[in-house]
């Protein structure tokens, strides 16, 4: 008990919100964070009409096309939508395999 009170005080001193901190140790996000993440996802699809299936297919096709020319790390390739104001942008982050640029 003493431990926890002291601990709490220290958290407060450091300006750390208890619920944030609890969320951090338990690895759980706050429901507000979850709402924000879910909304981000939903709004992207509402705005663009690109459903997750289409997105996956796009990603596959894109990676296939690129790998015809350079050797890429398929597993850590990321393709995502970026909000810029109310505009959407498709962002691809595709790591090359080491040494692939040297021929």
């Amino acid at each position, binding site marked *: 008990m003493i431990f926890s009170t002291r601990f709490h005080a220290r958290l407060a001193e450091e*300006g750390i*919100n208890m*619920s*944030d901190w609890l*969320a951090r140790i338990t690895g759980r996000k*706050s*429901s*507000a*964070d979850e*709402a*924000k993440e*879910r*909304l*981000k996802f*939903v*709004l992207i699809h*509402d*705005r663009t009409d690109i459903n997750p299936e289409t997105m996956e297919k796009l990603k596959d096709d894109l990676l296939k096309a690129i790998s015809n020319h350079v050797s890429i790390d398929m597993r850590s390739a990321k393709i995502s939508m970026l*909000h810029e*104001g*109310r505009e959407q942008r498709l962002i691809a982050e595709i790591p090359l395999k080491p040494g692939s640029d040297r021929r």
Partner: protein
Amino acid sequence: MTAKISTITSGKGGVGKTTTTANLAVSLADMGQKVVCIDSDIGLRNLDVVLGLENRIVYDLVDVVEERCRIRQAMIKDKHFNELYLIPAAQTRDKNAVSPSDMVRVCDELRDDFDWVLIDSPAGIERGFRNAVAPADEVLVITNPDVSAIRDADRIIGIIEAEQKGPANLIINRLNPQMVKRGEMLDADDVIELLAVNLLGIIPEDEQVIISTNIGKPVVLEPRSRAGQVFRNIARRMMGDDVPLMDLDYKDDFFHKISRAFGGGGN
């Protein structure tokens, strides 16, 4: 005099369009402005009860559109302000009785005699919403900090921009600072980031709003109401006054900051 036509809409129902329309109308009238508000929610009339004018209705918007009366005959004068009027919605007609061009015509007729025409839009994205937006010079979108209201607000903002009525201005209603503090409600910053629009104001959840609606006296007429103070500040922003937005930091006492940042001298 050339009235500015301002439409209050939301997408989702029940987020506070009518309450906002009534309170902004009263705030503007209180600032000496000549104001008409139009309830464009045909079949689901409500602005009359929020303003406490339900017993005075003789003619309505559909009567004006169908030329059964002159526009002045359908305008109900407010109890508190001589230069505040309501044109009520028809309660028994279907919503197709009015078209977007009818709304443009009615508003054009009002333009010369007033400073503001506030249009209370129905929920949804159908005819009633199109009617409300057609004559608008500016559109205010009301949302609550919850997922469905925000999602619908986003749809509405997209349509408003596509119709060249943008940029939309956002009012976040019913924000509960304690819940935000606990991480159980989206913060205004999050909402703005998600929707990427101008923020016109953040109205905190306030029981006084319901009490005021019970008695048909808009909450801005209660000098001590937090929500009332925010409505007055939003009206000032609509007038072009530079009233700073609150500092969205919930670590400190929220309401202290709200009143300080909004320039209200109250406390």
